[in-house]
């Protein structure tokens, strides 16, 4: 047992390949044989992943030392590297055609998420401009929240709420996208570009589109990747001034 523990500890990433491989195999098997492909295997695999994350804390299952390699495999370095590689299958003309709609979607996504987040936070009892702005920023992505919160000097529990809000967004986008895709016409590159900008969370968009139709991933990821930057730019500046003028 000790030998195995040492072996896995030294080869964390390789062990993560094995773990994810088993999750994928089991998920595809369940999708095919039990659910008759009503839920795609990818979606099941992602939900299994989220459930496994419950066994840990901050870094999900990677908090358990045996599974620490999962943090490397699922970390931002390999995520961004593989997302970039999906661009091989993307058609530049389709991106150009969706360029304007994608840009509009990007701005609307940040503005809409922020102000809806602020309104909800104020209904739920927050009254100070800094907390409202921080929670609104968290409604953009889980990076915009803490960046904005620390820039404005928000309290640590409000920053924690803003991160949690962003993580909830990732989870809902991941699970909700394949369910709602048909209803909102998300079945072509054009709407995937818009979708990426609107939702903003690269992780959620990438996972949600993967579960819907992997061909759409590069189009959604392309715009989503600009959203966090735009949110970090607008939330602690212009948006804070607006909120401060109303609630301050």
């Amino acid at each position, binding site marked *: 047992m000790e030998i195995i523990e040492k072996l896995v500890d030294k080869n964390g990433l390789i062990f993560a390949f094995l773990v994810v491989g088993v999750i994928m195999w089991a998920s595809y098997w369940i999708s095919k044989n039990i659910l008759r492909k009503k839920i795609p295997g990818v979606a099941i695999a992602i939900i299994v992943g989220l459930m496994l994350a419950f066994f840990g804390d901050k870094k999900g299952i990677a908090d358990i030392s045996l599974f620490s390699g999962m943090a490397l495999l699922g970390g931002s370095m390999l995520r*961004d590297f593989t997302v*970039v590689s999906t661009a091989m299958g993307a058609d530049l003309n389709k991106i150009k055609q969706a360029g304007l709609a994608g840009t509009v979607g990007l701005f609307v996504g940040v503005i809409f998420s922020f102000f809806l987040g602020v309104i909800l*936070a104020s209904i739920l009892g927050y009254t100070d401009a800094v907390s409202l702005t921080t929670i609104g920023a968290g409604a953009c992505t889980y990076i915009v929240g803490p960046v904005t919160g620390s820039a404005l000097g928000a309290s640590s529990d409000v920053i924690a709420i803003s991160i949690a809000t962003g993580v909830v*967004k990732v989870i809902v986008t991941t699970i909700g996208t394949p369910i*709602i895709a048909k209803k909102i016409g998300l079945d072509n590159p054009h709407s995937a570009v*818009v979708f990426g900008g609107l939702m903003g969370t690269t992780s959620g968009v990438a996972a949600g589109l993967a579960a819907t139709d992997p061909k759409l991933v590069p189009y959604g990821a392309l715009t989503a990747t600009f959203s966090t930057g735009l949110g970090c730019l607008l939330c602690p500046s212009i948006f804070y001034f607006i909120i401060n003028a109303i609630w301050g």
Partner: protein
Amino acid sequence: MKIYGVALLAFCFLTGKFIGNLLGAAIGINGDVGGVGFGMLLLILGNMYLKRKGLLEPLTEKGILFWGSMYIPVVVAMSATQNVKAAISEGPIAIIVGVVVTISGFFLVPLISKIGRKKQND
């Protein structure tokens, strides 16, 4: 050789991230603004250029496609390493705001997708 493809991908990735960081510094954010997006655009353009010149060997392409196919397993590992517990334990506010904002966002997709679509026939 496959490594040529992997190296090309790495070049696009790093250059994209570099541009993203420069843009981040230029607008006063200490971070990466759209680095992945720039990397993707570089790869699309590089791919088109090499194909036109006939320089893209199938094996080179395979080196890139392999990483594209690893994308879903990476996403599964990413899901397993999210702070799911905190998302739920921070109480109702994070869940209410997160759920309402995301679901409302879904319904904006068909509205904004209409932009720039007139010419499309398929």
